[in-house]
């Protein structure tokens, strides 16, 4: 390169780049970037090659993505560097156009995942992609059979109306319970449907129940057609 070429092209370009960098919004400056990487697998756990991660800067994921990762390697690995920001991410394996509806054989990771970068500026995020139609069909065949428990709610030997029973899968009360019955009538009877498993039952008169610690009754529910009778004598929340 001659000095003339340098003056006429490289120098102005450098000045332009520097000034552009200075004028760039902070979120697009190099030091504000974040690296997102991970592995994309099938529902059988096998690596998926040729898949892409789509990143959206808003909650609207039904539009062209703001960023798209390079396609995954034969080991299913992807890596993308993007300005540091909050994103919603989905993984897709599309055979045809990048945009538009999923076609038969295309795979998708389902609900968008919210990404909030931390101070490390390095994030690992794995996806599982599947054929949505196939997934829906599997789901339909395996529709959840809920077991039913039923009984009387009482306190101090008196049946209680206008309360409900809830079931938690753990003893922690900081989160909302997973399952709720309807309000009891004057006879104190409740009915609650839930998948078989181990639960902690409580009862409350206000909805949602307060987060204060409550007396809970531990029960194991098995699959069955007939309601399981479980009477509850617990202090009210």
């Amino acid at each position: 390169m001659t000095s003339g070429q340098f003056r006429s092209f490289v120098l102005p370009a450098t000045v332009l780049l520097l000034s552009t960098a200075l004028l760039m919004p902070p979120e697009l400056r190099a030091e504000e970037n974040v690296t997102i990487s991970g592995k994309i697998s099938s529902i059988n756990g096998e690596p998926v090659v040729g898949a892409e991660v789509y990143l959206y800067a808003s909650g609207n994921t039904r539009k062209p993505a703001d960023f798209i990762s390079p396609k995954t390697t034969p080991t299913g690995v992807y890596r993308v560097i993007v300005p540091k920001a909050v994103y919603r991410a989905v993984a897709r394996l599309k055979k045809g156009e990048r945009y538009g509806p999923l076609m038969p054989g295309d795979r998708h990771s389902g609900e968008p995942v919210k990404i909030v970068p931390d101070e490390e500026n390095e994030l690992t995020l794995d996806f599982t992609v599947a054929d949505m139609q196939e997934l829906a069909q599997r789901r339909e065949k395996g529709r959840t059979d809920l077991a039913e428990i039923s009984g009387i709610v009482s306190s101090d030997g008196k049946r209680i109306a206008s309360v409900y029973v809830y079931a938690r899968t753990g003893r922690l009360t900081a989160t909302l319970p997973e399952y709720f019955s309807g309000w009891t009538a004057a006879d104190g009877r409740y009915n609650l449907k839930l998948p078989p498993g181990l639960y902690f039952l409580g009862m409350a008169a206000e909805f949602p129940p307060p987060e204060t610690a409550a007396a809970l009754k531990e029960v194991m529910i098995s699959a069955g057609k007939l309601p399981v009778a479980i009477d509850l004598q617990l202090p009210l929340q």
Partner: protein
Amino acid sequence: MIAGPTFSFLLLHSIVYHYLMVNRVTRQPNIGNRVILSLILLLFLLLPPQNAEAAIIATDTVWQNEMLLTEDILVPPGVTLTVRPGTTVRVSPAESTKTDPEFISPLIEITVRGRISIEGSLEAPVRFMSAEPGKGGEWGGLLLDGGEAALKNCTITGADSALYLLDAKLTAENTTLSGNRHGATVIGSDGKVSITKSIISNNDYGIIIIARTEPLLTGTTVAGNRKKDRWKEDLPTAPEYQKNSYAPSLLPIARTYTDEALLGDTVWRGRIRVEGNLRIPEGSRLLITPGTVIEFSRKDTNNDAIGENGILIQGTIIAKGTKLAPILFRSAEKSRKMGDWDSVNLMNSDKAENLFENCIFEDAYRGLHFHYSTVKVASSSFRNNFRGIQFQESAVEILDAEFIANRSGVQGRDSFIRFSDNRLFDNHQGVNFFRNNLTFSANQISGTLKEAVRIREGNATIDRNIITGNRLGMLLTDIYYGAVTNNLLANSSETALSMRSVDNIEVSNNYLGRNGANGLNLQDVRAEIKGNLLVSNAERGIGITSFSGTISGNSFAGNGLYAIDLESDEDIDAVGNWWGGEAPVAVVFDRQRDRTRGRVLADTVAAQPASFTWPLDLLSGQITLAGDIVINGHPEVPKGSALTVSPGTTVRFAANAGLKVHGRLTSAGTPAKPVRFTALAGKSPGSWDEIALEQAVDSTISHTLIEYATWGIHSHFTNLRIDHLLARQNIGGMRFRSGPVLIRQSVFRENSIGIRSYIGNAVIEENVITANEIGLFVRERGSGLTIRNNNFSENSDYNIRSGDFNAEDIPAAENWWGGQEPLATIFDGRMEEGVGKVQLEPYLKSPVNLENAGIK
């Protein structure tokens, strides 16, 4: 493979189709358009009919030449469909399984909410017909749902109802309605129908009028229809209920949502506005607290007059209102209309039970709509929606809910359903279930303008429902297993219970009475029909087209035409029924009257009616009892209802049982056939409770026996007329408060107290009051009584006892006191100071001739 000429033909066809159906020939075409139209019309002559798919006609549209409809057509408000002279519209027959609630008929139909103008001429009339003509009823018809129609020189054939006019405005001239099931159905309370110089003939029914306003038929012939030319029915009526919408106290809007997804747990409180489609993805939950108001703005991008904003639940929803603080889902518009918003939709939501408790859904297209989900709806209300709830492939409980003034209450298919203790009033259609495992119990359905209950395929247990005051009661088709027991099916404008292609079903202990046509219709039915009460139906107790099974232990009485009308040529087994005191031959239509028909084998005639145990807690509607009735508990005749007890009826009460009347009671005995109210077991006073009348306005009791009760009659604030009553061996014959009460030509005998008055307003005249402990006890305020021309005798304590709290004198002149010194038979102020006196002067020296008092 498409050959060249065929391909050209299809291409040409597609161009014409595109022009006429996609762009649709709209508004007034300009000259250029007219030229194009002429060319197209020329081409069109060479083409087969075009298909119109399920279509919402969003702009003004013209039909002409040949049309083939293979799906429904909807003309929304503000849009006009014009049909040019010479047009022929053929409609494909289909028993559709479509689920859209905005259509009225299950068949293919043209629904008009806007305007239709049919411009036939004498030379080129317009014709609507079935694409595959049959007996009539292959397609739905021209259905005006609040819309407007002007018909000229038009012929409609092959429809279920050629014209179905629901609160519609119609002018028709030179129109022929022929070869349909129904020529015209005029329905509703707000329509105006004028049919001029037209012909309505050769239909099953010519014109059906279920409307407040009579159609104007000028120079129109309604004749030659197969069943009836004209059928007039009262508008179906529902019992009194809370008609006002819930009015919450409105807070400022807490949050507005547009098109978005809510991840994780979201809890709603206060007032929420939805201006888009909100989604709760799988794994996420929406929890709604008591008192929350959710309002949906109206968005109608396809101009079909139905809003599109709503909520889609793919996770779980728990909407837990309370009675005092319900959760309200409704339109956000100032002027709220049916269909302003879409629905709360659930899809594949079966990981937990979704719960809607004390929720109110108003102004929606479908209040709730779900597939593949587990849902419980309790104590909730659905008002003014196109459809209250629609679902399929789900596990569903709908309990203690009300469905008021919706176009359609509930529709569900391919599901496990428990539908109990619900109330459906004043809907156009009630419930429509298809291919379910169904438990349907203790529901109340009234005021429905079409079928209250329609159940097709699957199996069904139908028990303890009250289905009264609808146009059609219950229609069961293609049910392969089930039972219809202990239901009240009454006051339908047409038939109460129709069964078609039904197998392995028990129909027992149902009340099928006072319906406008038949109590029960049977077509291709195998069933056991036993212990039902079929009474006072305007036409038939049972109309049979074809039947295999047994009909036994039923009571028939007072049916207008026949107890059983057998149309088929096969004999049926109907031994052991009670025929209302008649010989079977007098009330059965079979081979004895028409040699082409089979025989009703009713040789064994029950001398006594079979006992019919009243199956419910209510005697709701206009109910007539006949035969032998057993009462358990205290069933109630609610306000607005009326109970008539036919001559010769015996009502037997179990221990402690009684009757509560808040409506009207008519005990209509005659001298030859008195009514009897007696004990089921025991022949001593107090063997049953009482007949309690509470503001039971205009009740009457004539030629009636009441015995072995605690109190025979216990009346409060009721204008009650009693004549020829025999009240005997009760603890008390009768007690009343207020009135006015008239008691005459009656006998009170062998009771502890014959009559007891408390602040009474009554005339007691020409009665025999004898052999009681106390003939007449006046507890308080005796001055309101007029007691005259009665024979008091042999009452062991007193003929009249003035109570300790009665400070007023009791007017009782001109009575006979049993031949004793009158004052010796009376306890009053003469014996205890401060108590009112019986004013007995002048009194009769000899008994009044009352030999016809009471019953014989």
